């Protein structure tokens, strides 16, 4: 029901959604998030993107986040697949696909997973622009997105 994976091969989001849904006629809602490589970041054209991770810890972090989402919203399934290595604009970087009986919990679970992944899972982006290579800085907005789940924890 939970599946997490890190791969350097191109990512097929549709396959993850199909595997999530397979053989479960009790699923009423599937929400999926696909993060894609943009050709523009902070105003500069980006030609290539390189993603580094921490083998072992990264998978553990993803597993933990997915398990928490499934438990918290009683999801019927959650798949998180993240690509690493070198990629080009329009390539999928990450897919989070979540299944539930109803839409509310599927949306919450999916957003929770990607918000936590952004701030907790050890991945680092390095982009190549016309000016050369640069490591991407973390966004304050990502920290804020994650914080929101902590605040509402007791009031769920």
């Amino acid at each position: 029901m939970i599946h997490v994976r890190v791969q350097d091969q191109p990512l097929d989001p549709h396959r993850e959604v199909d595997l999530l849904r397979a053989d479960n006629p009790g699923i009423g809602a599937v929400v999926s998030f696909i993060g894609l490589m943009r050709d523009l970041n902070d105003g500069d054209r980006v030609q290539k993107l390189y993603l580094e991770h921490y083998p072992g810890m990264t998978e553990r972090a993803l597993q933990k986040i997915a398990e928490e989402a499934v438990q918290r919203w009683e999801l019927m399934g959650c798949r998180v697949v993240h690509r690493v290595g070198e990629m080009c604009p329009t390539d999928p970087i990450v897919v989070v696909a979540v299944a539930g009986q109803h839409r509310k919990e599927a949306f919450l679970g999916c957003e929770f997973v990607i918000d936590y992944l952004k701030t907790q899972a050890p991945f680092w982006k390095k982009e190549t622009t016309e000016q050369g290579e640069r490591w991407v800085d973390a966004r304050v907005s990502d920290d804020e997105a994650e914080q929101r789940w902590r605040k509402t924890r007791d009031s769920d």
Partner: protein
Amino acid sequence: MIEVKYFARFREELGSDREQIEAAKVDTVATLLTQLRARGGVWLRLFGEEQRVMIAVNQEVADHATLLKDGDEVALFPPVTGG
């Protein structure tokens, strides 16, 4: 020994992705960081008090107060930017 791993920008700037450090000399992450900063130069710059350094011990998120023992794996890395 304690294995210390560096990732991403830290790895590149230090020119090293890992090293072994004598376990007897470090009992917490804080003392490990103090020892690294004492090397000066890029070490002081990357691991200075005001820098954002994320820490993992045995592949779990940790902080300055986390205790260290022989055989532990410590990772130091910049804020993550995946997804």
